[in-house]
């Protein structure tokens, strides 16, 4: 899984986090309640790459040694975490709870144990969940009763993304205007001769031709109306575009930034920020496999074979998805490529696998 160092910046011993000030304030209030009454376990829900784990680090700093941290990074296969839960401090931080279950028969045992412990404990549990796993599990378990406080991580705005990128940039950035040629005609008609075979007459048929550059300019003008364009600097428009293409997800924004703007780049223009385009075409089972990777965030082929039909040609499907640039395979661990996240979600919504 790609780490999100982009959201964090080491400043002495402390970690700097951008864009989650309100979330941290709410959590601080919950932590500072005497005896945590009313006890309101917290579920932090967010899509992949949105900085959940980094938020847990930050919360851990606020807890001042009252907490026990449990970080899951793979499917939980043993019961060691139960001992840790029993011997934990007053506050228990559990990151990536989606690793507590597997979507197959018998795959909910660990989650059952965990939820029973949470429900019967007097401690305050602050947990993080993959948004797509949560959306599925909330109809399987009464999660909303067990975690009465649910916090969805906000999407970052252009200002926050700017701070994040600037904080991690080690080279001097300069910005330049896009070259926009004023041309109102997006369509031009040219005549195409058609000869009718029987009467042997030639007719000129007007055929519309699209001026893609003019269309692009008009589209850009629509995104950034003239007032806004006058009001904001080129720098702001670069980050506004980054926010648009990444939908405010810090991990996706960082990946797109790295891909679009190499360190050797000269002046940066808004049009340099490239929106990743993916053509996804899979069968239903392959799309389901993609959905499992999206929900789990990090999964092995062996685990996939336990979830999907073992007779399915999963190795070939994985190869196809990797070749399409949708997933990355690192040491047999499969994960979603950050910049492909929103294309995948959109596709899975059309396949009715994500809702």
């Amino acid at each position, binding site marked *: 899984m790609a780490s999100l160092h982009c959201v964090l910046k080491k400043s002495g011993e402390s970690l700097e986090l951008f864009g989650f000030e309100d979330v941290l304030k709410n959590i601080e209030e919950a932590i500072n309640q005497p005896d945590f009454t009313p006890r309101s376990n917290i579920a932090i829900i967010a899509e992949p790459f949105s900085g959940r784990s980094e938020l847990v680090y930050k919360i851990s700093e606020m807890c001042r040694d009252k907490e026990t941290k449990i970080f899951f990074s793979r499917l939980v296969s043993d019961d060691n975490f139960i001992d840790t839960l029993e011997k934990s401090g007053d506050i228990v931080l559990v990151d990536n709870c989606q690793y507590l279950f597997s*979507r*197959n*028969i*018998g*795959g*909910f045992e660990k989650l059952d144990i965990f939820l029973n412990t949470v429900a019967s404990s007097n401690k305050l549990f602050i947990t993080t969940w993959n948004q797509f796993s949560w959306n*599925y599990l909330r*109809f*399987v378990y009464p999660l909303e009763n067990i975690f009465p406080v649910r916090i969805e991580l906000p999407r970052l705005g252009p200002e926050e993304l700017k701070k994040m990128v600037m904080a991690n940039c080690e080279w001097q950035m300069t910005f330049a205007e896009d070259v926009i040629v004023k041309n109102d005609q997006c369509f031009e008609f040219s005549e195409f001769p058609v000869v009718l075979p029987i009467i042997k007459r030639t007719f000129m048929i007007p055929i519309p031709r699209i001026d893609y550059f003019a269309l692009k300019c008009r589209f850009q003008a629509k995104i950034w109306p003239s007032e806004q364009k006058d009001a904001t600097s080129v720098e702001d428009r670069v980050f506004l575009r980054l926010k648009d293409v990444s939908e405010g997800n810090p991990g996706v924004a960082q990946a797109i930034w790295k891909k679009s703007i190499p360190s050797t780049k000269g002046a940066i223009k808004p049009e340099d920020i490239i929106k990743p385009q993916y053509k996804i*075409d*899979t*069968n*239903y*089972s392959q*799309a*389901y496999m993609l959905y499992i990777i999206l929900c789990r965030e990090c999964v092995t082929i062996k685990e996939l074979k336990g*979830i*999907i039909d073992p007779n399915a040609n999963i190795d070939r499907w994985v190869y196809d998805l990797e070749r399409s640039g949708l997933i990355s395979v690192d040491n047999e661990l499969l994960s979603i490529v950050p910049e492909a996240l929103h294309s995948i979600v*959109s*596709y899975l*919504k*059309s*396949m*009715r*696998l994500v*809702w």
Partner: protein
Amino acid sequence: MASVDVISGLFQIINPPTILSSLAVLLLAYAASRITTYVLTSLSEWNVLNVFGLNRITVKMLIPLLKFTFYFAGLYYILAAILKIASDQLVLFSGLFGAGLGFGLQGLFADVVGGLLTIVERPYQIGDKITMGGHYGEVKDIGLRVTRLVTPGDTLVSVPNGSIFQNPVANVNAGNLEMMVMIDLFIDPSSDAQKAMQILREALLTSQYIRLSEKHPYVILIKDFPFYKRIRARGMPTIPVMSSSSRPM
């Protein structure tokens, strides 16, 4: 004598140029309906539709409506603008049409009216899983005369629209993208029913086709019978969307 004039007038109207023009209009209507079908079918598979809150079935439902519109507009144009039929000729034409119906076109007429009623009443829509005229399958097309179903065995069946007047139509999902399925499991009375219920519940919840939401609940039921117990699971699996590479053309 007057009726002879009307008949001779009608035959004067029907001459080679008007026949050719009428054929051209029908051809145009046919081409327009084919192009519309192609465009809307392609459009219905676009992911972008989700952004507008549309799904493929909503878009495909427009196809039969537009087809009927094109054909009836074409017919109206032929009668009003090409043949320029006067009111007395129209009465005569209706009489001839009625006689035609009596002699053998009533089946065709019933099918066309059945198609129209299908558009208005919507007992089924494109994409629904229905049983019609003794055939079960997914509705692929609602035409002027026939409804085309694709059976689970991938056979294309054309059922005349008129059959909705004689036989009931059973619609499994009625326009929804999911349909209820029921699975029964029978166990020995001495077996661990709780365990069996848990397994069946997990089998249902972990299916790749299951859809869970407030609108799509699931239920596990148990019932005692004299010599066995029946565990029944009810859930709402989604009807998988076939990708373009796997979709039959």
